[in-house]
């Protein structure tokens, strides 16, 4: 309990400090460059100068935090990737050469590509399906809410939930995992799903798809509602069938949104770590890059050089999406 009070106290101090900074620095600026100066010329010059400085006062703390926590680490990681496990001795390309030859890395990279191939596609498709279906019924909002719910559950919580679904008991004894129970009821043999190499990847992916479908659904549903009615009415008058309307008229109009959903989920997939750690910890050939990186970060006291190199690979996979996002944002700003 004491800890919570300490936390509340720190929040109060932190907010007071931040407020004091913003208020104080602005006050100081107004004091140093008063807008109501005796001479008109000084006054207008002061206003202009203050206008140059003030944005940076507003931006200051944010830039500091962004710089320290997101920009600096990119360069530090590049530097670390050329150094040994403690970041002391320069080792050239040794970490990269190790990476290429490492079986664990190749396995993780392969699995990551599987994840990238399946999860964004499946989530977007299921999300689109759920959005189209729920928009047509009276209790659609309740259905949406329930499909969206896994979004609030942590990856670890989801892992526990699904581990229970996949639970395996030896053949002959009663299955308490629902998947195996269904398989047995249908006359099949129970499987230890998450321990079957290669296929277990897909059982782990199901968890992320389960979480992300709601996200895709919410956004695509909004986009579908934004489609102008006239285009659909015109298609109906021309005698198009429901499926034709959907694929030829509606989907092309929301391509932009589909792309955004797809890329957002792709980013999530690249960072997925908790699910694999909690379900298999990379055993049975199910490792992914983020978990491999975490592993190297702490294995045997931690190998920062190799860890940073793996992080850079993840970063490199993100860069195309980053560039695409920035280009979109800039195009949109010019449009305003």
């Amino acid at each position: 309990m004491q800890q919570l009070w300490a936390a509340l106290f720190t929040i109060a101090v932190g907010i007071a400090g931040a407020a004091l900074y913003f208020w104080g620095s602005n006050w100081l600026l107004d004091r140093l460059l008063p807008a109501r100066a005796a001479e008109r010329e000084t006054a207008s010059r002061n206003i202009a100068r203050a206008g140059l400085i003030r944005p940076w006062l507003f931006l200051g703390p944010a830039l500091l935090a962004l710089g320290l926590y997101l920009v600096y680490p990119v360069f530090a990681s590049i530097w670390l990737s050329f150094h040994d496990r403690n970041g002391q001795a320069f080792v050239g390309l040794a970490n990269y050469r190790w990476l290429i030859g490492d079986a664990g890395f190749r396995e993780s990279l392969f699995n990551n590509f599987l994840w990238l191939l399946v999860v964004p596609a499946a989530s977007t498709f299921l999300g689109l399906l759920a959005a189209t279906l729920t928009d047509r019924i009276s209790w659609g909002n309740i259905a949406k809410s329930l499909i969206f719910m896994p979004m609030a559950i942590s990856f670890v919580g989801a892992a526990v939930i699904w581990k229970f679904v996949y639970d395996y008991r030896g053949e002959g004894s009663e299955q308490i995992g629902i998947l195996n129970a269904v398989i047995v009821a249908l006359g099949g043999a129970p499987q230890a799903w998450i321990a079957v190499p290669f296929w277990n990847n897909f059982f782990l992916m199901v968890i992320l798809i389960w979480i992300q479908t709601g996200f895709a659904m919410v956004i695509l549903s909004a986009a579908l509602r934004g489609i102008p009615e006239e285009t659909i009415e015109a298609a109906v008058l021309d005698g198009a069938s429901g499926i034709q309307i959907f694929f030829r008229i509606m989907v092309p109009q929301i391509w932009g949104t589909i792309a955004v959903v797809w890329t957002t989920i792709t980013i999530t997939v690249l960072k997925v770590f908790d699910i694999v750690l909690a379900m298999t910890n990379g055993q049975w050939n199910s490792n992914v890059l983020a978990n491999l990186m975490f592993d190297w970060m702490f294995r045997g006291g931690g190998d920062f050089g190799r860890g940073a190199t793996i992080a850079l690979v993840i970063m490199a996979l993100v860069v195309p999406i980053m560039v695409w996002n920035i280009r979109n944002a800039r195009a949109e700003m010019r449009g305003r």
Partner: protein
Amino acid sequence: MLSGTRSPLAWAVHLSVAFFVLLWTLPTLGLLVSSFRDKDQIAVSGWWTALSASSQNLVFRAPAGDGEDLVAGRYVLTGTVLEDGAGRVSAFGFSSREPAAFAPGETAELKDGVTLSVAEDGAFTLSGPESFAGARGQRIFYTAEIPPRFTTENYANVLTAAGLGRSFLNSMTVAVPATVIPILIAAFAAYALAWMPFPGRSLLIAAVVGLLVVPLQMSLIPLLKIYNSVGQAFGFDPKSYIGIWLAHTGFGLPLAIYLLRNYMVGLPREVMESARVDGATDFQIFTRIVLPLSFPALASFAIFQFLWTWNDLLVALVVLGPQDDKLVLTGRLVNLLGSRGGDWEILAASAFVSIAVPLLVFFSMQKFLVRGLLAGSVKGG
């Protein structure tokens, strides 16, 4: 557009949505039901049978002579194998090789003239020519139909014994400040990026958009190094709550700035211009006009950030460390998966303790969450 079609198609839509919803809620429901079940029952039957009686193979050891009576030259020991009183015995036996050799009511002949019978209600009678005192109590194997039992014991257990109560406080300690701190910082920055003209503004906005997708993994090692050296230089523990609050602040800022700027840009220009004409400074415009008007966007971001920091495992493991007294709920769950992997009553109750708060936030503030998602993803919307 398809309104008015009360056709089989409409039914198909209803049915498929129902199936969709079922598929999406079933896994969570399973764990929820299990968390309230008796731990012996979880281990032997699926949660979907929770409402029906479960059949269990159990062993009871008769007391070694306590309470035996001498009746007509034989020592007779009576009692019940069903200690909780509820249930129905469907078979019994006296050896582990044939635990269900006899039907209830039958009399089994053991060696040395000992006889055993178990009734359907669990009452047993053991009788023999010699006293049972001194020997080890006779084992009675039986199969019983145990009626469903629901209990909150699992929750009481995990909150005290498994250290979940402690972790709950830790998660609160991490998540609340990590949600509040970035809001103020981001709001000022977003205002500057939305309404203050200065050179390099569009470049900064582009940079924020770029930083949105920088993977966390990138920052962890450099961050760990900084924290360690700062801790060493000033002589304090580098694994501190302040460290994790600031880390979450840094990681949450791009989204916060992006969301808030997008919202603030959409505020009516006239309001701000008339305030400026009336002599208000930027600081006043921001605190008196923009901040109150931006409440929906602030709420959206706050929910995001709270869910994200509460559910985070990676940052907490790296920055706060894996020591027992600083484990957050997600970290505790991972530990339990390792150490108590088969104890579903512990895992289920623990998982629900950890997801209760986010679910509460989710269902009570879904409106803001959806609005935030749309603002964050559908550009130009």
